[in-house]
């Protein structure tokens, strides 16, 4: 088969396009995102931290680390083991971790899962429940939530009643409203003290941001 010059030219253009895309992918992969995001304005600071939200760490901690998350969001799911390591690393330091709910509308089980987590928090087992939800985030139907609640030993009558009556709907809605007021575009969104965290989702990068805030 003899190739005409036009055919050669077109094939060359197609191959050149692939090479340009390959180069773009290489440089995109090397790019390091800027970790420091914008500071939450004073007028909105009270929307960032709610004292009835689930926390780990001292109330008067020097650093408050806030995650706005969605139990059905795969990105929150991949961040979960990383944050677990970060929480373990800073458990004896002046760092408080807080979880705020931001269930996204496209995740059909996320809102009920958030309500269930609030109920688990009322029964002082938020973080155990939170871990189970993230570890099983593709199974978050009501019957799954009940099974997880049983597994960690929640008071089942109270739990079922809270889910059926949507007792914690307003708490989740308040968190979502706070998130929207803070300009959240999605989940997970992280804040270190009053500053939005834009950096990589790794133990090292998150630790660097927390260490800087601890200084």
């Amino acid at each position: 088969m003899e190739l005409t010059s036009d055919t050669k030219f077109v094939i060359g253009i197609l191959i050149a396009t692939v090479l340009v895309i390959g180069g773009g992918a290489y440089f995109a992969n090397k790019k390091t995102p800027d970790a420091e995001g914008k500071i939450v304005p004073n007028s909105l600071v009270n929307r960032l931290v709610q004292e009835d939200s689930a926390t780990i760490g001292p109330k008067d901690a020097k650093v408050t680390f806030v995650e706005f998350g969605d139990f059905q969001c795969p990105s929150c799911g991949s961040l979960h083991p990383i944050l677990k390591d970060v929480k373990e690393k800073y458990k004896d330091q002046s760092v408080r971790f807080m979880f705020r709910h931001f269930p996204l509308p496209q995740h059909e089980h996320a809102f009920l899962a958030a309500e269930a987590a609030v109920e688990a928090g009322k029964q002082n087992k938020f973080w155990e429940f939170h871990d189970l939800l993230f570890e099983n985030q593709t199974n978050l139907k009501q019957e799954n939530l009940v099974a997880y609640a049983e597994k960690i030993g929640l008071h089942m009558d109270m739990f079922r009643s809270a889910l059926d009556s949507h007792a914690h709907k307003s708490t989740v809605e308040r968190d979502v409203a706070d998130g929207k007021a803070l300009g959240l575009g999605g989940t997970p969104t992280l804040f270190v003290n009053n500053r939005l965290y834009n950096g990589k989702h790794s133990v090292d990068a998150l630790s660097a941001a927390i260490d800087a805030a601890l200084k």
Partner: protein
Amino acid sequence: MEMHKGLVGTAFLGLILSGYLFIAYVSPEPIACISGEGCKAAQLSKYASFLNIPTPAYGMIFYLTLGMLGALWAESTKKKLLPYLIALVGSGFAVSAFLTSIEAFVLKAWCSWCVASAILVVIASMMTVQLVLKNKQQSYGTNI
């Protein structure tokens, strides 16, 4: 110039679309689930890669091959190339239909770039059907 301009043009557009998705896939920017943004939902799903290779990379291979076939298309080569075109576009159509159904029924989110790529696959399929019919007519004409 004998090449099939329609196939080449479609392949070029598809290459740019899948190339953009490929770059977005390998970018280390923290990925977030975004309300109403189906591309992120698609990017975060288990369907974003197959055998550890990003799905857009398969798209790039598909469109590159389609472009090559389009560029090589000529009166003297079309009989030899048609079975390859049918196999390529047929498999591309099947994969595209599968991924579109995943968007509709599993992710319940639409990624505009993926939809655009699916439309290009439909266009390529229509052109292929046209070539098959033309080829049949020509064979029929030669036989009588």
